[in-house]
């Protein structure tokens, strides 16, 4: 961390017109104010988490359908490939065109579009890894296909889901900022672009630093502990 700060300071001194120093960036944070930062962070978190939850719900429905019906499996496999092939930029522009710049729906749906394929791929991988062993046990116990899914397959997917969620939530935060940059929802992405538009160079770096800190905090305070907890579910 100290090495990064020293490097940043040296680069800032070499290019003073382009890059603010760490101290100037911290001063800019102070100028922006804790209240505005907190509000923007909460908006970005809300957009990211809601979008992730929408992606998660869609992925769980898709994998449940795929488990019970092979035609559904082929359909969702193709859909996954299709969604992955569409750029996030396209999703952002299309959803802003549909819902307008002020609506929070656009960043939420962009995040959902970005996280859905990650989660679905993780769950499909889990399905391939778990299927045979747990399906055999379910059959030996006389479980119905529905009981097999609810009691054996979905719980068995939890460690895989948590691992996929760690990537998905990291991406959700980054993608949410991109989608916010196109609109006027008031998240970190919006203020970052606003700072750029008004020539507030230190502000751009301050908002970027806030985003980095937010991602580190979410990773260490939430995602890593949850992943450690989920390890006991591993076969």
């Amino acid at each position, binding site marked *: 961390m100290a090495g990064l700060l020293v490097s940043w300071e040296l680069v800032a001194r070499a290019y003073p017109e382009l890059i603010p120093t760490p101290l100037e960036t911290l001063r800019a944070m102070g100028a922006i104010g804790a209240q505005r930062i907190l509000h923007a962070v909460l908006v970005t978190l809300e957009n990211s988490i809601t979008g992730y939850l929408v992606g998660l719900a869609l992925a769980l429905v898709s994998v449940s359908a795929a488990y019970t019906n092979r035609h559904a499996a082929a359909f969702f496999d193709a859909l996954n490939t299709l969604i992955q092939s569409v750029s996030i930029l396209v999703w952002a522009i299309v959803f802003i065109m549909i819902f307008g710049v002020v609506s929070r729906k656009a960043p939420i749906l962009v995040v959902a579009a970005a996280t859905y394929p990650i989660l679905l791929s993780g769950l499909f991988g889990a399905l391939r890894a778990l299927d045979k062993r747990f399906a055999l046990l379910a059959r*030996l*116990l006389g479980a119905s296909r529905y009981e097999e899914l609810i*009691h054996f397959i979905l719980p068995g997917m939890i460690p895989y889901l948590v691992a996929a969620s760690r990537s998905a939530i990291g991406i959700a935060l980054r993608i949410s900022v991109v989608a916010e940059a196109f609109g006027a929802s008031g998240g970190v992405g919006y203020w970052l672009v606003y700072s750029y538009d008004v020539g507030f160079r230190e502000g751009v770096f301050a908002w970027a630093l806030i985003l980095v800190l937010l991602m580190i905090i979410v990773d260490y305070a939430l995602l890593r502990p949850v992943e450690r907890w989920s390890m*006991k*579910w591993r*076969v």
Partner: protein
Amino acid sequence: MESVITVRNLRKSYGENLVLDGVNLEVARGEVLGIVGPNGVGKSTLLRIIAGVEGYDSGYVHVRGRVGLVPQETILLPWKTLRGNALLAARISGLPREVAEARIEELADILGITGYLDMHPSQVSGGTARKAQIMMMLVLEPDILLLDEPFTGLDVNSIAALQESILKLKRKGLTMVVVSHMISELASIADRIAFLTHRPARVSRILDVRGLSRGELAAELFRGLVNDEV
């Protein structure tokens, strides 16, 4: 004595690979039948057919009563305790929870795993996990228990403990078919031992081990070995 399992001229193949070629077996109520044979000969296939989880090409298989199959590989849900695994089995079979809990305590006592009931599978030894798997199947109250290679991968103490548990179940009158390639371990729990020949497998002879002295048993098993049955 009344037969609870009857297998006649059973044939099973995978594609062009004939695995079972005219297998004949009878298992009486309350009997423990051991089945021995070389690895990969089709012992597990035979058990799965008797359990009704695998089909066959021709022949006749008749089973009187409910069957519980304990698979070769221990499969317990790692996110549930041993008690939780057994309770799930009970729930699927429609057994009321109070009845299931009492039955689990009774079975855990017979199997000697009462102290491990609230532990997760990753916290117990392979032998205890194997017994928990047997408990999971016994919660379903089967009339016949099929055990596929129950001693494989266990240390000497765990094998002895498992043999003792199987003998307790036998004394309670449970009919069991135990498949193993570990003939001496099988001989100490079985009433009769069926020898399967190399593929395509068929039963070459059935040895009644009840009342045999250790010397006679060793001689009979040796006869099986020299006849290339095991």
